[in-house]
């Protein structure tokens, strides 16, 4: 009685095992689609282009999972720690690029210099055998560098570049007796000091009722700080030959200049104190609470979406003090992905100049592929919403004027700390000097221990 069940059990187990094995093997024999999983955020992966690629390659399925920017950063860190994860492509924001470029963290991503395109996209104009070094020439040099680690590993390929220009309301400018033509407007403010002066003149002409309802010249005077910081060559870290860079947040004159200008704008009362992407900001846009916004190219889409009633009342003029930038994303392949080749082929296609141009026209994300900047299709593109401004031409000018900036490990949190300091000044909680001293001591604390 005892022996018989044992053999029976063995037999059943064997039968079961072979059956399971057979079942599991069966689908593998059939033609299965290769699934590329992408972790991204916002509109980084455009649905239209994704469908187009799937149509070109019936054997590929692309799954894009949306995240929040900070949440995705943590998820990427954790996945890299355990060297496993479902993602084949991961997006990271430029403010985080300093983190990934530092130390040995670039090992989390595949070195794209070692990848080679296959012949799958030849018909779409992408030759076989291209490494990242071969396609580098297509992109804006300083923007490309943001995806390259300090040990020269190419971690990511840039998607869009923010650029930064002034979006302004022609109707409100006219009411205040200011010129409305974009060339004449740009001439009003060659420098930031002039910009503040124009703002003062605008605010002086507002009625008391308008002032009480919070209307002013610019949405958030604090945004001037970031714009000026990006116009320099150094932020909080200075290149000194080491990976970490030298911390110069106490000595860099650019910081003082940006801080003082932003504070001057606050005390001149030209800011409506509407924090960007806060609820009041969205509402204020349609209500004429601000006559100007320092807008990266990707923000134009926000203005269209949240203030559709202002169509045709906007125009875009040059930023005071030269070029500008805000934001941008890199797409990278994690080193533990098992479908690196398929992922790389998709990346090189998705971020090729041709596709970037399509994204620009449909969503307004400005291409990082600088070969497009003298392309007539980009230069002649006009946006009805912004009074037929040649958006492509204006933003190309903005990003070509910039120098590469050394982005260090804690760039983002240092930036946030300065932003909070300006917020305290704007809310009249602290004087400029006191708040600045607090910012410095807060950063000391962040870096200590």
């Amino acid at each position: 009685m005892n022996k018989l069940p044992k053999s029976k059990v063995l037999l059943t187990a064997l039968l079961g095992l072979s059956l399971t094995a057979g079942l599991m093997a069966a689908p593998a024999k059939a033609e299965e689609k290769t699934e590329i999983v992408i972790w991204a955020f916002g509109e980084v992966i455009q649905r239209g282009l994704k469908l187009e690629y799937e149509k070109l390659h019936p054997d590929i399925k692309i799954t894009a999972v949306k995240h929040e920017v900070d949440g995705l950063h943590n998820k990427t860190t954790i996945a890299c720690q355990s060297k496993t994860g479902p993602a084949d492509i991961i997006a990271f924001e430029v403010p985080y690029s300093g983190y990934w470029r530092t130390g040995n963290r670039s090992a989390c991503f595949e070195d794209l210099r070692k990848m080679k395109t296959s012949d799958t996209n030849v018909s779409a104009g992408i030759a076989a055998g291209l490494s990242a070094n071969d396609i580098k020439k297509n992109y804006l040099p300083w923007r490309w560098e943001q995806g390259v680690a300090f040990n020269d590993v190419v971690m990511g390929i840039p998607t869009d570049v923010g650029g930064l220009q002034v979006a302004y309301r022609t109707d409100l400018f006219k009411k205040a007796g200011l010129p409305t033509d974009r060339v004449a407007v740009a001439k009003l403010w060659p420098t930031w000091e002039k910009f503040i002066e124009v703002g003062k003149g605008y605010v002086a002409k507002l009625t008391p009722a308008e002032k009480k309802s919070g209307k002013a010249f610019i949405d958030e005077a604090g945004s001037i700080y970031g714009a000026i910081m990006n116009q320099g060559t150094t932020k909080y870290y200075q290149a000194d030959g080491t990976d970490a860079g030298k911390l110069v947040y106490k000595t860099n004159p650019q910081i003082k200049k940006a801080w003082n200008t932003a504070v001057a704008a606050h005390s001149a009362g030209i800011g409506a104190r509407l924090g960007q992407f806060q609820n009041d900001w969205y509402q204020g846009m349609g209500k004429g609470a601000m006559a100007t916004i320092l807008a990266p190219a990707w923000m134009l889409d926000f203005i269209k979406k949240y203030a559709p009633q202002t169509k045709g009342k906007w125009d875009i003029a040059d930023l005071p003090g030269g070029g500008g930038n805000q934001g941008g994303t890199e797409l990278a392949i994690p080193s533990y992905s098992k479908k690196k080749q398929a992922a790389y082929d998709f990346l090189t296609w998705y971020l090729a100049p041709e596709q970037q141009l399509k994204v620009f026209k449909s969503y307004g994300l400005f291409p990082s592929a600088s070969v497009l900047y003298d392309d007539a299709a980009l230069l002649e593109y006009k946006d009805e919403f912004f009074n037929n401004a040649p958006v492509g031409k204006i933003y190309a000018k903005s990003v070509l004027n910039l120098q590469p900036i050394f982005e260090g490990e804690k760039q983002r949190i240092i930036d946030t700390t300065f932003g909070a300091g300006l917020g305290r000044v704007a809310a009249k909680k602290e004087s400029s000097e006191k708040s600045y001293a607090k910012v410095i001591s807060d950063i000391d604390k962040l870096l200590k221990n």
Partner: protein
Amino acid sequence: MSLIKAGKGRRKAPLTPWKKQQRKPIPGVPSLNGRWGYPAIAPFFVIFLIFGVAPVVYSIYIAFFKWDPLGESEYNGLNNFIFLLQDSDFWLAIRNTFSIWALSTFPQLIMAIGLAAILRNRRLKWKSFWRTIFLVPNITSIIAITIVFQQLFGRDYGIINGLLGLIPGVDNIDFLEGVIPSHIQIATMITWRWVGYNTLIFLASMLAIPDELYESASCDGATKWQQFRYVTLPSLRNTITFVLIVGTIGGLQVFAEPQQLAPDGGSSKQFLTLTLFLYNQAFLNYKYGYAAAIGIAITVIVLMITTINFFITRKISGEGK
């Protein structure tokens, strides 16, 4: 039958738990004691070990390091804890957390008891509808709640400031920049989300109060208010304690609401809570070891409050007897 017989000889290793149960029968209780008991409870404990105990042990370990998950880590001794006690942000976070907790818990308690008393009313129509609708805020995503409440509390276009503006001479309140105003905004969000849940708990507890108590009270000439004060409230004592304890644990974990309003907790960290402080040190400042030390500090605070709660509970239930 043959199996049982065969097993009779092997006393040291009983074949089935059923046999052991035969030896020590527990009347009326089918038991899994013996050989199958541990495997039966194993799934929970294995998962708890992996996802509960292991991370706790690990974070205690890394609290003594300068920890970089993707690079080199170095031993830091007690420095993380010393630094924590000297960090003004930590004390600020404690202040904020308790202020938000107090502002959300006590009004919520009063509102929940009041609402439950209304829901208990026998003449109330559509009872199930009301009970269901009270739970809706609880299952709404915090992000959605934040968006709605930002519309209410907005400085320039918020509804509350719109109403305040009707009174001449009153300026708009900047709810986000002020210390107490921002705490009120967050506390309102928490209250809105949890008041319905607590109402249902109080309602369940009220329905358990025997009707005879009310009948004899009204025979003695007690008014509705006196019935509420001297019959309902004393019977709710244990429930109030329960709600307070759960509210305290929740209050110490307030995170998503302030993070949605401003990830850094406001320009002068006026609504930086303990958990947001921990999160920012780990994931924005990459000080994982320091964040682990903050986690331990939060645990100590929770333990302290639980002890206080324990003594208060004991005192209250002692009075009840």
